[in-house]
């Protein structure tokens, strides 16, 4: 109709280490919109797409541009936690409705939480907390924690300990390794000497590939079971090859999840982009869905902000990951799966935690 178009601002990295994540998120979100006829609450969509370069120092300037120059109605992004914090700090409160499709820092739906900020991905807490019982249930009591020594890694490790220690596990040693360095040899030797039952890790991207390969090459697979937050093996099958076989990780998604929504989504994504869907695509796809829900509820009237927010926070989404709801702090509540790499695929072993919530420490959302 004669209504102005809805402006969706996207701030995702398309260059650098996180580029792949950025493109998948964007493509999947656009796929969701396309499925809905490229209309939000009856209005045409206009995208304003900016490369965040995953650079924290630029985050404010770029967010500012989307908010004050482009006047976007929705803000989607980012991938990188620190960029996310700079972005959310500007957007929270009076800014546009913001949907975070990846950044995991606990603060985003913790101290920095706000009525207009949603997350469709996960909090670091959710990448660590369900790991404790999962490892214990597999029968491993003595565990070494290894992770990249930066915000996200530290939060994952802390959450892991929160469930693991009370349930009777022992942390033999914590080995934070410098981020984003990838020479692990000295640490692996230390690990070998410690002889734990298992090691729980947080690494991602190139570091994850390197870690898994070095771990296998050092012959440690025979005696120490390797666990980690899902990013350790997610989408890295081809690069890791045999080295990843048997590695167990927890994540709110697995390629092989057997539910209709997932099958449908994977095929559609493949058709639309030619690429294989992964967890990031799912998060983008759900971000699209969430925005659709909100706009549908107010029939495209972005002025009805409170109503839209209410609709979004009460949304129950039949996501490719399974059932997805949102907490008071607007963080996802979803199942966390324990997965194992078998023949290059992350196969679900069991559900590690049902309806995993996040404590949202410091969040003041009513």
């Amino acid at each position, binding site marked *: 109709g004669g209504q102005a178009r809805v402006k969706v601002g996207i701030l995702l990295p398309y260059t650098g280490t996180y580029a792949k994540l950025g493109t998948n998120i964007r493509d999947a979100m656009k796929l969701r919109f396309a499925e809905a006829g490229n209309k939000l609450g009856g209005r045409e969509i206009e995208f304003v797409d900016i490369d965040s370069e995953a*650079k924290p*120092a*630029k985050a404010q*300037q770029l967010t*500012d*541009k989307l908010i004050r120059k482009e006047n976007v109605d929705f803000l989607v992004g980012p991938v990188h936690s620190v960029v996310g914090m*700079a972005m959310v700090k500007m957007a929270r409160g009076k800014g546009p409705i913001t949907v975070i499709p990846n950044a995991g820092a606990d603060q985003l739906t913790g101290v920095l939480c706000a009525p207009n900020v949603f997350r469709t991905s996960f909090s670091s807490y959710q990448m660590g907390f369900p790991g404790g019982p999962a490892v214990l249930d597999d029968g491993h009591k003595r565990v070494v924690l290894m992770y990249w020594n930066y915000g996200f890694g530290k939060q994952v490790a802390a959450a892991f300990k929160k469930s693991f220690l009370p349930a009777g596990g022992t942390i033999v040693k914590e080995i934070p390794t410098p981020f984003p360095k990838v020479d692990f040899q000295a640490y692996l030797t230390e690990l070998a000497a410690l002889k734990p039952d298992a090691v729980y890790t947080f690494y991602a991207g190139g570091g994850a590939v390197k870690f898994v390969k070095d771990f296998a090459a050092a012959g440690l697979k025979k005696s120490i079971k390797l666990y980690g937050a899902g990013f350790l093996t997610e989408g890295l099958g081809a690069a890791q090859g045999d080295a990843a076989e048997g590695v167990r990780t927890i994540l709110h998604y697995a390629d092989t999840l057997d539910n209709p929504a997932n099958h449908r989504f994977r095929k559609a994504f493949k058709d639309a982009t030619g690429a294989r869907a992964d967890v990031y695509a799912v998060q983008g796809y759900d971000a699209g869905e969430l925005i659709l829900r909100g706009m549908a509820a107010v029939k495209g009237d972005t002025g009805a902000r409170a109503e839209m927010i209410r609709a979004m926070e009460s949304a129950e989404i039949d996501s490719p990951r399974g059932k997805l709801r949102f907490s008071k702090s607007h963080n996802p509540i979803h199942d966390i799966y324990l997965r194992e790499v078998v023949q290059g695929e992350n196969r679900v072993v069991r559900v590690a935690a049902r309806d995993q919530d996040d404590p949202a420490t410091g969040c003041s959302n009513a």
Partner: protein
Amino acid sequence: MAVTTRSLTLPAALLILVLFPLFGSSFYVGLLTRILILAIFAMSLDLLIGYTGLVSFGHAAFFGIGGYALAIAFQDATTIHLWQALPLSLAAALAALVVGWISIRTSGIYFIMITLAFGQMFFYYFFESPRYGGDDGIFLFFKPVLMIGTESILNLENENTFYYFALGCLVTGYLLLAMILRAPFGKVITAIKANEHRVRALGYSINRYKLVSFVIAGTLAGLAGFLEGAHSGYVNPSYMSWHSSGIAIAIAIVVLGGMGTLYGPIVGAFIVVLLQDFLPSLTEHWQLLFGGIVISVALFLPRGATSLLPRILSRRQTTRPDSPPPEDGPREPADG
């Protein structure tokens, strides 16, 4: 000739800057504030690389320290008094004193590398230190105000006020440096850049001059960092990393604008920020364009973009003999 160009262009540019908030939208006022802050930083770097011949790859650390000093001191405060906060940028001066004292013992490539080492150490210290927020950085939820009694005279919460404050800092910094460079001190540091060994033989204890120059530059960088922290309400270690936004871009700004002049880095800051704002709207692979532009300037405009200006203005007076080729970027002395 250069004098008339400068004496006309500078006030004109300043006038435009002063009037800008009356016409520009608040987004652009914000963007311009960032540019001004970056210009201060670049100018301070130019004092080192363009005048003293100290190529410091660790300069971004002082920018970061300026911001961190503010953030650490006022992390939990609800009002930030400007007169309490501003002296904090002296933390950068202190850091520069220590780093400089050690670094100036080396020269050339080794100086580049030892300053890089210090820069990296500061970066990792803040990146990994749990005390100061690690890689997450620190947020500030208020902007500084200047109060007398209970009366607020200068409230930087206001975008335009902040803009004028930053502009004031830039102009003050510019005038201060211009004065220093004309003074005996300036003569010595330019000579040090030209031939350090000879300066020493002439009876100057060059290390003191280098150190003072290093500290002045560090302080100014700290001031810029302070402003950036106050303006964005957010500091994080990536300001100090050598590559992402720190030193490599700063060097690009200085050289693109015109090294060894004070206005060069200011122009450079405008060029770089505006390019980075504009190019991404053309293509997803905009860095290709940006890289291409940087390379072209490096190859074909060795004295930076500002060297174009007098050339354009002097087209009328074609008889003026060209000075010899600018291979090593000979500078105009600070005063003719």
